[in-house]
């Protein structure tokens, strides 16, 4: 079922780790998880806690004319409620990232005066048991005056379309024009202009198996909340919640151990967390909130739905791509919870993997009566990369060229690296054409015509398709200024602390909130290599606690960055510790210089006379518990905190030029499908995924991420969609209708890896956790190949394929 192949390329000389780094060390976090001893948020309990249940809107758009909680509160065992009116009195609206008009909307943690999507929280009820909280929520009386709903972004700005946010004066939330190069020259030079009227990237998300949740305690004595939650970006939650709740961030302590998948979908739970905080204070008891699957589907973090309209591509007859212009229309749903950052994040991968020089993209984001969108694995780049890939295959078809050749002709070449894109981003390293060859080899591309003929004999239509994408990692938050020049964000950072404790234990704390990426393991590998010890001797604390002092403004686990930001912080802190250990040992040995010392065998020794050995245990004991007599000027704590700060400049707000991301991992996927022409049902019969994320600290973990991203891409391409009816009812609110892939749905998979280390990162690593959604396009392209019809949607359920075949007949 699985086969693997590997190639190592080292185009640039990069210092990479030797030893533990590069080995598939078995994960340290597995044991507790395999024994059912992980601690997920719903596992956390407190004496006297109350369970919170949200009363949610049944309407996509309606005025709230009356809210009456008295019947609910009258029930024995109900601790209390919270209404939108109370929220509006107790908090300020959430800070908006957007410039006007999106900046003008007023977003509270419960609906105030109006509901804007089905499933929007309206009232919160807290009771003694989970069941009772739901019972009581049914007794909350809410009167609505329904309004017409807008569910199609394409008509959101029409004059007769209902407006969600009167404060914004319309449904336009944000718009901006991005233009680089010389479009007119490109179109003048072109032999052909390929026009694509409309492409649609559908709404879905990664549906982490664990939904959101929190247990919030309020300490009245010190006016401080402890928020046990599975939010994956507490740094962001804190800067949203603190100002809204009018408290300093030190009053909000975030604690997490194990998180049951995140994929970006657990970044924007801050409204629900505010409700929990307010109720924990109001009721003076711990408040527990567990989101159920239907709640999640209705209300949480849908991926950005995007239309690409009026696309024009300037090409030469030989398939050389000169430039394109398009209008991207993004459907934000009802609120801007992380948006409109999607309006710039795509620009990290402006030309996709191609040497397009001239690009113009008019970006518009509108509000609709659907669940708010938020980051989803491959956030905003995935949509744009799918678009660039679609353009390649449509151009190839229009010019009657081989999609493989068009890609190879236009890919950024290995010798061009590092390559500066038209908007000033720097692709660090890679050999895209070599990856494509590897991927094609893995599916036996050379024998595809024979397979096509064989499939035909069996009454099936075979198709093969390619998806080639970038997983840009380590954001430059300065790109937010292209959305709103007033914002004071730029760069990025992450923190780690490494200390030697009293008995010589090596203890590592991370600023991250991993959700299965194996941070405890890879961090230990980096530490072990530097301290020259075993990974088993390194204790990486599980989870995250903002009171550990190992978090920074951008701490969290998101946007493909741990291997760069997290591990670089670990590396920095460990190197500080190593230097301190040597400094201490030098003093203990009576003035031996650091150069004469080495770390080995769980201690430090003099290179020339290895018998002079100070075990870590002794080092830890001396500094922590036996430090009399040490030189006064010995500035050693053996408790080292390092903040890694990637090298970024603030992007130019006028030209919209700048380096928006530090690293570019790359994926080339190839899918082979067989379509049943009578039903449109199809099966992926072969699949290859080739990944290049630079230096791999733990190849097995890397491959695991590749596999997961592949499965999610396949699911999105074939089955997963958040579709709404015209009244704004979600038609896929559970796993019965929102079909995610199961074991039997998975195709045979061949993985391949190329390592082109990043010249820009301390370890040669690149972030790679998101994948680029390559598989979504690979499936689209394979269907285009099988049916002979242009595929214009990222989601191709059987019904759509059947329609394509009907169109082909007609």
């Amino acid at each position, binding site marked *: 079922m699985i086969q693997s192949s590997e190639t190592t390329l080292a185009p640039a000389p990069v210092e990479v780790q030797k030893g533990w780094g590069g080995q598939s060390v078995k994960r340290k976090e597995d044991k507790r998880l395999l024994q059912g001893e992980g601690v997920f948020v719903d596992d956390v309990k407190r004496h006297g806690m109350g369970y919170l249940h949200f009363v949610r809107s*049944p*309407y996509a758009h309606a005025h709230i004319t009356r809210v009456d909680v008295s019947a609910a509160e009258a029930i024995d065992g109900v601790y209390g409620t919270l209404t939108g009116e109370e929220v509006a009195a107790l908090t300020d609206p959430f800070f908006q990232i957007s410039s006007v008009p999106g900046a003008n909307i007023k977003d509270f943690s419960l609906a105030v005066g109006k509901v804007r999507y*089905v499933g929007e929280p309206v009232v919160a009820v807290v009771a003694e048991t989970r069941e009772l909280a739901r019972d009581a929520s*049914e007794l909350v009386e809410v009167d609505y005056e*329904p309004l017409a709903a807008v569910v199609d972004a394409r008509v959101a700005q029409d004059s007769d379309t209902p407006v969600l946010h009167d404060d914004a004066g319309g449904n336009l939330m944000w718009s901006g024009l991005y233009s680089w190069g010389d479009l007119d020259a490109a179109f003048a030079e072109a032999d052909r202009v390929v026009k694509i009227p409309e492409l649609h990237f559908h709404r879905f998300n990664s549906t982490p198996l664990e939904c959101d949740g929190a247990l919030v305690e309020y300490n009245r004595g010190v006016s401080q909340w402890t928020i046990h939650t599975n939010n994956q970006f507490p740094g962001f939650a804190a800067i949203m919640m603190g100002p809204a709740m009018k408290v300093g961030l030190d009053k909000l302590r975030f604690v997490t151990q194990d998180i049951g998948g995140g994929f970006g979908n657990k970044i924007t739970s801050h409204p629900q967390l505010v409700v929990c905080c307010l109720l924990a204070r109001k009721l003076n008891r711990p408040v527990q909130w567990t989101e159920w699957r*239907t709640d999640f589907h209705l209300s949480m973090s849908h991926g950005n739905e995007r239309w690409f309209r009026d696309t024009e591509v300037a090409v030469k007859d030989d398939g050389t791509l000169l430039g394109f212009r398009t209008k991207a229309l993004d459907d934000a749903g009802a609120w801007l919870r992380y948006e409109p950052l999607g309006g710039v994040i795509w620009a990290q991968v402006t030309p996709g993997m191609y040497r397009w020089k001239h690009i113009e993209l008019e970006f518009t984001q509108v509000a609709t009566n659907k669940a708010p969108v938020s980051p989803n694995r491959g956030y905003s780049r995935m949509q744009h990369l799918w678009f660039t890939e679609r353009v390649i295959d449509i151009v190839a078809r229009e010019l009657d060229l081989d999609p493989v050749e068009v890609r190879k002709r236009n890919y950024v070449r290995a010798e061009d690296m590092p390559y500066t894109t038209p908007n000033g981003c720097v692709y660090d390293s890679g050999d895209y054409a070599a990856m494509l060859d590897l991927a094609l080899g893995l599916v036996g591309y050379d024998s595809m015509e024979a397979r096509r003929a064989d499939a035909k004999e069996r009454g099936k239509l075979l198709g093969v398709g390619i998806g080639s994408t970038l997983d840009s990692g380590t954001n430059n938050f300065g790109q937010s200024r292209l959305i709103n020049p007033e914002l004071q964000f730029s760069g990025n950072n992450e923190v780690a602390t490494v200390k030697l404790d009293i008995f010589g234990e090596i203890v590592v704390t991370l600023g991250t909130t991993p959700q299965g990426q194996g941070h405890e393991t890879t961090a230990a590998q980096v530490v072990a290599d530097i301290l020259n010890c075993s990974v088993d001797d390194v204790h990486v604390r599980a989870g995250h606690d903002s009171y550990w002092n190992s978090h920074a403004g951008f701490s969290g686990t998101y946007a493909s960055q741990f291997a760069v930001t997290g591990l670089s912080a670990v590396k920095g802190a460990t190197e500080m510790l190593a230097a301190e250990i040597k400094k201490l040992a030098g003093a203990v040995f009576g003035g031996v210089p650091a150069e004469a010392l080495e770390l080995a065998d769980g201690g430090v020794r003099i290179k020339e006379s290895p018998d002079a050995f100070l075990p870590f245990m002794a080092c830890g004991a001396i500094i922590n518990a036996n430090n009399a007599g040490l030189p006064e000027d010995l500035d050693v704590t053996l408790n080292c905190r390092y903040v890694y700060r990637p090298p970024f400049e603030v992007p130019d707000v006028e030209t919209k030029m700048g380096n928006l991301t530090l690293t570019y991992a790359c994926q080339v996927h190839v899918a082979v499908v067989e379509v049943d022409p009578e039903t449109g049902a199809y099966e992926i019969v072969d699949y290859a995924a080739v990944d290049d994320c630079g230096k791999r600290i733990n190849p097995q973990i890397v491959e695991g991420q590749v596999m997961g991203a592949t499965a999610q891409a396949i699911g999105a391409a074939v089955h997963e969609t958040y579709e709404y009816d015209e*009244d704004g*009812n*979600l*038609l896929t*609110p*559970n796993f019965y*209708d929102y079909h995610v892939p199961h074991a039997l749905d998975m195709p045979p998979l061949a993985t391949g890896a190329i390592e082109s280390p990043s010249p820009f990162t301390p370890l040669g690593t690149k972030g790679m956790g998101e994948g680029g959604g390559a598989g979504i396009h690979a499936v689209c392209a394979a269907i285009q190949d099988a049916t002979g019809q242009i595929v214009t949607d990222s989601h191709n359920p059987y019904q759509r394929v059947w329609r394509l075949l009907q169109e082909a007949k007609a």
Partner: protein
Amino acid sequence: MNVSGERTFAAPRATVWQVLNDPASMAKTMPGVESFDIHDDKRWTANVKIPLGLGGLKMKVDMEKMEEREPEFAKLSVKGNGVGAMMNMETSFTLSDAPEGGTAMAWSADVKIAGPVGSMGQRVLQPIVNQQVQHVLTALDGEVQEAMGKTG
């Protein structure tokens, strides 16, 4: 969801009109009515328990006559509020003398269902709505016949 149809009653138009506009007779045609309150000649409320195989769905249904042109046309707004579902329906009917005698009724309804029941999907709801409509029409036939009996 839009449903519509035509039906002919073996009764004069006045009788059919009378049945259709008498809340008490209408109550008898609705599935699972447990209680019924008439507020005035335009508004009435019913508490119903729609029988579903897996357990009845309780709903409070408010009806309001929006428009009427005796004896040919009426339009009603129906709002149902249940714990598992919210229903909004606009329905209208047009009566005319049938060519072969009796009264022809052309009716249509636009039904919207929200809430957990709504999430069960159209493939379930549409047949359920059709089923309930058939129930109403059959019962209506009975009511018209009964009215004929009384008047005739």
